[in-house]
């Protein structure tokens, strides 16, 4: 299928349009609010909220007997919220550390959710099918009313974030200072957690309980690589989330029975990988280049210094020495010839006869500079 056809379908194909819109919304919302979770070093919160939401979904279905999106989301939100408060409570009142508390609550709630799901599947009722899509997500089941609910709730979450920007910022950077500034930080934290819970449960039907935490953490992790500004970071996280959501939806629509959730997560993982490698300043690739460049500079300087030493023992500073002599002076024999070639190119050394080398006047001056800087350091 060509790109033009995909674009055409995105606009005119009802299913694909709905799925892509829903996935895009989920990417924006979880990306933007996940950034605050990542900055507060609470990446695991996403995992805990999404897993603890599962029994909520099951109970909501058992109570109402219906699979309306709003009911499911409310059930998920209540359970996710209760689970998170439970984690916070355990951390505060016992000696159990936060990671253990998260693991504990997460597995108990998730296990309970699985039991309820199995129970529902065995019920003599035709309407129960499809609830298990919440495990890994099934975006193709998304309908227009689902997307509208997602968009409204997501917009609510993002607008809250924009209104309380300053408060969320100080909560993430220095909450104690926030208290001395007169803000009830506990309240701010509860609001942020609530908004994050909304962002997560909005995406559960599409991405699924198991992989939703990736949509919370990954866009922020990728965005952080590219910028040092909070506003830009959150914008980028939202953008990356949207790109991953839409492209994941399109790719999974092209192949039969390819689950949307994992595909979206693979897309965001690719974005993370590229960001980790290529982002300026923080990217591994540029780090390698920088390190390689520094090492090369170091070897060049060492060769210059060695040649300066050699030149000093002769009256004629342009007295040439064979490359082997210079090599013998160096601890690492490798690379001396290559360095000489590079130095010749920049006009610092000249080759005389076969393989004999001498400093040019320009190289002499450079070597003096190098030696001086070495002396300062030692």
């Amino acid at each position, binding site marked *: 299928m060509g790109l033009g056809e995909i674009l055409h379908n995105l606009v005119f194909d009802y299913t694909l349009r709905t799925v892509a819109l829903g996935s895009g919304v989920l990417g924006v919302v979880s990306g933007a609010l996940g950034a605050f979770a990542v*900055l507060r*070093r609470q990446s695991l919160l996403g995992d805990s909220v999404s897993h603890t939401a599962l029994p909520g979904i099951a109970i909501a279905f058992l109570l109402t007997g219906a699979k309306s999106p709003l009911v499911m989301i409310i059930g998920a939100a209540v359970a996710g919220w209760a689970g998170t408060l439970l984690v916070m409570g355990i951390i505060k009142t016992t000696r159990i550390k936060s990671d253990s508390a998260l693991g504990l609550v997460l597995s108990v709630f998730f296990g309970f959710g699985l039991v309820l799901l199995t129970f529902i599947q065995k019920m003599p009722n035709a309407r129960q099918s499809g609830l298990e899509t919440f495990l890994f997500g099934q975006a193709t089941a998304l309908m227009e009313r689902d997307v509208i609910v997602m968009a409204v709730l997501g917009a609510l979450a993002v607008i809250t974030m924009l*209104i*309380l*920007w*300053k*408060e969320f*910022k*100080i909560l*993430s*950077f*220095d909450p*104690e*200072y*926030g*208290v*001395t*500034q*007169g*803000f009830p930080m506990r309240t701010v934290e509860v609001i942020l957690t609530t908004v994050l819970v909304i962002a997560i449960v909005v995406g559960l039907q599409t991405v699924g309980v198991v992989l939703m935490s990736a949509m919370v953490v990954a866009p922020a992790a990728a965005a*952080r690589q590219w*910028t*040092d*500004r*909070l506003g830009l*970071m959150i914008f980028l996280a939202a953008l990356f989330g949207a790109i991953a959501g839409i492209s994941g939806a399109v790719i999974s629509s092209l192949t039969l029975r390819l689950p949307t959730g994992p595909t979206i997560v693979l897309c965001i993982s690719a974005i993370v990988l590229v960001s980790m490698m290529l982002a300026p300043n923080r990217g591994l690739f540029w780090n390698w280049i920088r390190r390689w460049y520094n090492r090369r500079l170091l070897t060049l300087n060492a060769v210059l210094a060695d040649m300066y030493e050699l030149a000093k023992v002769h009256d004629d500073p342009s007295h040439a020495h064979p490359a082997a002599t210079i090599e013998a002076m160096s601890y690492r024999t490798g690379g001396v010839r290559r360095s000489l070639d590079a130095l010749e190119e920049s006009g610092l050394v000249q080759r005389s006869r076969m393989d004999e080398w001498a400093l040019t006047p320009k190289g002499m001056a450079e070597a003096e500079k190098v030696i001086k800087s070495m002396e300062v350091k030692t």
Partner: protein
Amino acid sequence: MSGYDKNKKAVEVTDLTVAYREKPVLWDIDLNVPSGILMAIVGPNGAGKTTLLKSILGLIKPAAGQVLIYGRPYEEQRHTVGYVPQRGSVDWDFPTSVLDVVMMGRYGALGWIRRPGKKERLVAMEALRKVSMDNYAHRQISQLSGGQQQRVFLARALVQDASIYFMDEPFQGVDAKTERAIISLLKELRSAGKTVVVVHHDLQTVPEYFDWVTLLNVRSIASGPVDDVFNEDNLRLAYGGLVAFKSHEHREQVKN
């Protein structure tokens, strides 16, 4: 000691007790800080110095006791109190600029929702100038050295325009030059009639930098003008006989 008013109490702590799981961290502390002085709080590790600051600032809920700032509860006087936390208490890799951090000192005055604007920017730049960090205003905070981080925190407290400043180890990990710059800033604040309370760990510099001192080790060992209370007996009480230090000034005073 430039004309402080002994009758005007900047901070008045009575019967303050703080406990973590039944173990007292601070025990029955009474503390009076007259207005317009530079006070050091010294004591061994685990003496509760930081806890004392945090309880005064309402960051830790004490088991018992009362704190008054200029005769009124802290909650009513929050705007008159500036705070410089320990440098290591935040993540310096947070994506924000120096200017942004300093403007956080105005958040309380701004109140909910309202964002810092042009006025806050000007005030923050002015404070950065005072700590000679104005050239760094737009730097990312992770690019700062320890001393620069400390000065940013000081600037953030300065924009609060408070009457009392509480500072937690502002000299920790800074070079001699920054230390001198900070102490002259503190003295400037005192000349402007402000009160400064500093958690300090270097006993050598106490007589040189401060006019009042509180020796703390879970209990309040002694508190008063440096000349009166900063002596060997009190230091031994606070540090449990492990103090080899005695300042030159004090040796002379003992002789006299």
